[in-house]
């Protein structure tokens, strides 16, 4: 072979070898992670209301038993302007009710929507525009409700006129706005009804037809004194009974199994000698998957301390009203959440450093503090 030919051949071989090497190391582009279509039931959706930057609220999907921040953090959804979140188990969806304005934080035209995400991709698969009236404020689980068959989503409005918007999740359409004058929030009862809590201590029930249109309404007598001992805007559900704690430490049980709520006899969380202990926090009550009740308790409750959170979680049998144990928290707690079933039940406590502490239930063994960064993770929902 002539020298020039040899050189050129060797050069070609070298170039081809270089190109082959580059192909071996090149990574695919455009790869998007996916989550399982059905989440492990101990996973949590942590709602960061982003109080100091309200338009940037988020709902984080988290594995609370993973040991590092990167393995805990699975993904996120936007929840603009202190949104409201509802888990959709039947369709494997998330529902985030949020508010947008055409000029961002400067304002402009307001649009409220129910944004629908899928479990696996956390992509927006649809949205339903609802009246731009939803209540915005500190997050309360009863600002949004869903019928047991998960067909109807109900959103509380406050302008300050009070009403509830009804959305059909199957057809993804807005159905109706139901006035609830003098009464706030939405707590589903029965199959096609909900009640709202009134400023005079009564309950107003709205009955819907099968399609979600308003059919009739009714009012209970006054059940509690709003000035002296009001119920919190949160309850623990156990065997079809919603247990609402009050500021002073009683519990008002409301049976939700029928189309009209039925109130039961209030009971105390505390003995007479313990009345300085009171429930407190953003969400001071939850029930786990077994129906066991957990109340966030502060040791020195008084007028004006109902949002302070607490140092202990008291565990109750919600049928017998017997206190089973008192869990001393590792850190002062502000709000409660739960996830998991059976032996995998977990308690989430957002602490006073705005970190989320995880405990095993029912024993209360501290697992760890989540490494995720969230400004104000004030609501924790379970994937169970």
């Amino acid at each position, binding site marked *: 072979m002539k020298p020039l030919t040899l050189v050129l051949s060797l050069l070609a071989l070298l170039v081809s070898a270089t190109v082959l090497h580059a192909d071996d190391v090149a990574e695919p582009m455009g790869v998007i992670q996916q989550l399982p279509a059905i989440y492990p039931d101990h996973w949590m959706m942590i709602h960061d209301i982003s109080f100091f930057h309200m338009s940037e609220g988020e709902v984080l999907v988290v594995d609370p038993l993973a040991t590092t921040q990167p393995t805990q953090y699975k993904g996120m959804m936007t929840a603009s302007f202190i949104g409201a979140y509802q888990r959709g188990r039947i369709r494997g969806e998330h529902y985030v009710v949020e508010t947008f304005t055409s000029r961002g934080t400067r304002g402009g035209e307001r649009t409220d929507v129910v944004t629908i995400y899928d479990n696996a991709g956390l992509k927006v698969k649809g949205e339903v525009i609802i009246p731009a009236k939803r209540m*915005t404020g500190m997050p309360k689980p009863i600002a949004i409700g869903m019928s047991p068959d998960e067909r109807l989503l109900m959103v509380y409005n406050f302008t300050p006129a009070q009403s509830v918007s009804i959305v059909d999740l199957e057809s993804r359409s807005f159905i109706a706005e139901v006035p609830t004058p003098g009464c*706030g929030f939405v707590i589903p009862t029965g199959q096609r009804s909900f009640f709202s809590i009134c400023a005079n201590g009564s309950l107003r029930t709205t009955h819907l037809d099968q399609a979600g249109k308003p059919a009739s309404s009714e009012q209970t007598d006054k059940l509690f004194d709003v000035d002296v001992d009001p119920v919190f*805007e949160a309850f623990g559900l156990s065997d079809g009974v919603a247990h609402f704690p009050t500021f002073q430490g009683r519990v008002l049980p409301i049976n939700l199994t029928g189309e009209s709520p039925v109130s039961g006899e209030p009971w105390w969380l505390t003995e007479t000698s313990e009345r300085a202990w009171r429930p407190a926090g953003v969400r001071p009550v939850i029930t786990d998957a077994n129906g066991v009740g957990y109340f966030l308790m502060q040791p020195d409750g*008084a007028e004006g301390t109902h949002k302070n959170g607490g140092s202990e979680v008291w565990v109750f049998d919600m049928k017998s009203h017997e206190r089973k144990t008192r869990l001393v928290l590792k850190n002062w707690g502000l709000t409660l959440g739960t996830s998991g079933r059976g032996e995998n039940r977990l308690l989430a406590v957002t602490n006073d450093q705005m970190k989320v502490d995880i405990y095993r239930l029912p024993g209360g063994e501290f697992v760890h503090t989540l490494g995720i960064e969230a400004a104000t993770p004030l609501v924790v929902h379970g994937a169970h």
Partner: protein
Amino acid sequence: MNSDKHSRSGGLVDRLTESLSRSVASRTSRRGLLGWLGGAVAGGALLPLLPVARAAVPTQSSGSIADRGDPTSCDYWRYCAIDGFLCSCCGGTANTCPPGTEQSPVTWIGTCLNPDDGKKYIISYNDCCGKSGCGSCMCNRNEGDRPMYHPSKSNDLNWCLGTSSAIYNCSTAIITGLALPET
């Protein structure tokens, strides 16, 4: 129980800012002007008394009352039921809104004790709206606060209502009158 560590309590936002020493909550009942009006006007029935727009509200600078205290501190007596960023830290004052914002015509009210004269005053916590959250001087005190289904006494609601924008910037604390003596 680890009582030493947890014997203190503090507001939710106290812990966000770590800037507030805990105030002593009033233990008096709230059967003052608010309770009387709520019963008389609404008949004790469904509709609560909603605070509405008040024209010609006198400003604090009239000097009509003794009014010591630091309006940039959460401990300031007027802030006994406030929740939000203090407008006095955001370009406004305790009773005026920052430039370019819009004051909400409806809001929640509180009844606060003025330590200088020992009288209780009705405070209207009008929000200033139309700009994103100020972020300074976050305070949350809850004397007389009640759940959000009792709007006139709830500081948890975003009261940027009746304004051209619902975006919340900060909260004022405007004296609207004296509370009636409790019966």
